[in-house]
């Protein structure tokens, strides 16, 4: 076995794919999560993105609906 057998790829979307998705789908039907720091968020974020810094994600999972597609950046 190689080291890679112990890891699974995370699904990724290109920025274009995200752009298209955000244009076509109603905001009630997805979670868009900015996992950076509050300062980075203030300096600019994607329209409608919700700020949950990655260090807080574990404790704030309830704020997200896990049945909806979720995009992180």
């Amino acid at each position, binding site marked *: *076995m*190689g*080291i*890679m*057998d*112990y*890891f*699974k*790829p*995370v*699904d*990724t*979307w*290109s*920025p274009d794919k*995200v*752009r298209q998705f955000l244009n076509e789908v109603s905001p009630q039907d997805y979670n868009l*999560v900015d*996992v*950076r*720091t*509050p*300062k*980075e968020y203030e*300096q*600019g*974020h*994607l329209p409608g993105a919700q700020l949950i*810094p*990655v*260090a807080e*994600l*574990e404790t704030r*999972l309830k704020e*997200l609906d*896990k*049945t*909806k*597609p*979720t*995009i*992180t*950046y």
Partner: protein
Amino acid sequence: MRSRAAAAVLSREGFKEAYSMEGGIRAWNGLRAAGPPDAGMAYFGPAQKPDEMIALAWILEEGACKFYTEMGKRQKGPDEAALFQELSDDEEKHKSSLFKIYQGRTGKDGDPGFPHSLLSLESGVDYLEGGVVLNKALEWAQGQELRDILDFSVSLEVNAIDLYIKMERKVESGEAKEIFQALSNQERNHLKRLTEAHQTLTS
């Protein structure tokens, strides 16, 4: 990088569809983001045996330990150098905790095959989270700003927490559960400190 780690956490917690946007906000703004090597990979496959996971965690701790030591040496600021050195020292201790759990499970005092033979991996190559080869990450880090290195370090810690939470759920012995819990708490503390350092830089 942080976003990959976040998507991995969401998958673990039962989100059916979690996607990380490639290249983050920089790519969204049309800038080319230079990620670390093999940055597409992240989380730990679920179907491993506990002993294999312990061996894997040990290898990743060693990789992180060496990565932080090297980052500590490269920092000009004393605060950053001290931060990386402390992280490195902690990861070194984590290796002992992991070996202790392994010993507890197998009843062996020493095991020359641990950890590489358990995973059929060549020794002599160091790895980081996601299977990134340490030397490639060190090469990548050479041209990066501190902010990007902290960002990468944050993703290492989030994945370490992820691994320890999974392992805590997987092992049966109460003592091993406690050790894994302690390990994930220490990595949470690392995550907090790295996030704070990152936050200070962004101001």
